[in-house]
């Protein structure tokens, strides 16, 4: 058994990386990711972590070096945030297209302008189509566990995809709390050494990532889609195995239902918000109000089947997200609507965009979402004070005014 330590989300990520024994770590510092790369530097310089640590001159080079190392057949790790992820954008597609299972921790931070170092998901959201597995975390423990599970899922021969482990800036990255740090032996038993079939090897020369035209590219794209589909099963399987080995699980690996039995309305959210929403649901349930909560852990692949199944139970479903797709509400909201489209008992869907630029999403914020959903359930209509745009209804919930 591991041992509990009081560490921050970032330190948990560094421990998660260390336990997975990457051969090459390449990263560039950016607030609020810095303590991850600092901790790994400590590990390396103190001889606690046996790896090549390439202290590159940019995030672009950080991921590029991981690309080269992974193509040469070794396990890699990197971490970034916000502008850094945006700078990596180009290479993300190379990693997933070349099917290199690189592992990355993302500390979700606002993209400028305005310059802001606090939490927002708008850095990772534009990468939802990049072909990376995207997992969102609720606690430091989940960050550590997800990094370990991500390697297992991404390196599966039926998947071979790179992975994001997302955590909210500061709210998770800089928050110290007890985290169970597993023993090295336990992780070694769970995560075997990396074995890739196609690598840069002078004894078996191959060409990786050549120029391709339309005669071949669609088939490779289909391969990526299929890998994402396969990842669903792999995530479920790995989640189960992880539970057996470490005694911790996060829903079924893709999604977690919280107090959905008999719920009239449900809120869908991700990340650190989930914890706060759990408290609100507990309190409202005590007051005999039938509310439920759905935590999306895997944003890519998106838990379509699970969401359709659970959405049937309620008359109104809301989405609370710390990001916006201007002109279309929020990305999680639009994905959810797509996922539940055509259900016989299709619930009304409301998108709540909140917490932008790191503004606190507190209990009032979440309660307000539930109030709006309950009101909607009663009247069957989305309240008129919401911003209306065709069929889309959404609203900014301002925590400060509550």
């Amino acid at each position, binding site marked *: 058994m591991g041992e509990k330590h009081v560490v921050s989300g970032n330190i948990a990520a560094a421990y998660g990386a260390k336990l997975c024994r990457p051969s090459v770590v390449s990263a560039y510092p950016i607030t609020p990711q810095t303590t991850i790369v600092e901790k790994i530097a400590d590990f390396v310089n103190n001889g606690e972590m046996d790896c090549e640590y390439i202290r590159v001159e940019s995030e672009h080079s950080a991921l590029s070096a991981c690309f080269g190392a992974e193509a040469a057949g070794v396990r890699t790790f990197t971490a970034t945030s916000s502008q850094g992820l945006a700078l990596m954008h180009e290479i993300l597609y190379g990693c997933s297209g070349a*099917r290199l299972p690189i592992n990355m921790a993302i500390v979700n931070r606002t993209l400028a302008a305005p310059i802001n170092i606090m939490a927002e998901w708008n850095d990772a959201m534009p990468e939802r189509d990049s072909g990376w597995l995207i997992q969102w975390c609720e606690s430091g423990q989940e960050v550590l566990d997800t990094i370990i599970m991500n390697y297992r899922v991404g390196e599966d021969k*039926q998947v071979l995809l790179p992975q994001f482990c997302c955590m909210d800036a500061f709210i998770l990255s800089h928050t110290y709390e007890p985290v169970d740090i597993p023993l090295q032996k336990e992780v070694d038993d769970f995560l075997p050494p990396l074995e890739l079939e*196609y690598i840069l090897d002078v004894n078996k020369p*191959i060409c990786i*990532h050549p120029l391709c035209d339309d005669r071949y590219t669609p*088939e490779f794209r*289909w*391969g990526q889609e299929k890998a994402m589909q396969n990842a669903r099963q792999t995530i479920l399987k790995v989640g189960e195995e992880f539970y057996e080995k470490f005694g911790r699980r996060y829903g079924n690996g893709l999604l977690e239902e919280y107090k959905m039995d008999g719920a009239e309305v449900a809120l869908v959210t991700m990340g650190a918000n989930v914890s706060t929403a759990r408290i609100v649901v507990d309190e409202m349930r005590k007051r005999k109000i039938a509310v439920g909560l759905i935590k999306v852990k895997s944003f890519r692949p998106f838990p379509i089947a699970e969401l359709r199944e659970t959405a049937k139970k309620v008359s109104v479903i809301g989405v609370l997200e710390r990001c916006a797709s201007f002109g279309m509400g929020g990305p999680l909201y639009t994905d959810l609507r797509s996922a539940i489209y055509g259900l016989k008992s299709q619930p009304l869907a409301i998108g709540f965009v909140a917490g932008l630029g790191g503004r606190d999403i507190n209990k009032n914020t979440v309660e307000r979402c539930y109030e709006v959903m309950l009101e909607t359930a009663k009247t069957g209509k989305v309240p008129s004070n919401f911003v209306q745009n065709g069929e889309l209804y959404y609203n900014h919930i301002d925590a400060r005014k509550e």
Partner: protein
Amino acid sequence: MSDSLKGDNSMTFLKERDNIKEKTKTDAEFLPIPIITKPATTLQNKTGGWRSFKPILNEDKCTGCLTCWVLCPDSSIKRVKLDKRFKVAINYDYCKGCGICATECPVNAISMEREGS
């Protein structure tokens, strides 16, 4: 000529493509990944067809200095060992007719002639 040069090369491409398409459709285990698993597959691609001028070697003049061999961008000049010295042979399968060999030959043993004339 190596074995990989034999056969109809254009058909090989088509076959490979069809193979990928077919496998994607039928084989649930098959994961198409953008990788060329064999080296030097360009040998299937006979670039000799690009030529409008053709280098002609005058073997009597050739001293076997190998200058043309080392300066050919298409590796279309082959060294042929003769006892203790070399002579050269032009591989028209790949020669694009750039004329570097003719320009650089120190004894003017290579001349460019119009293709098909």
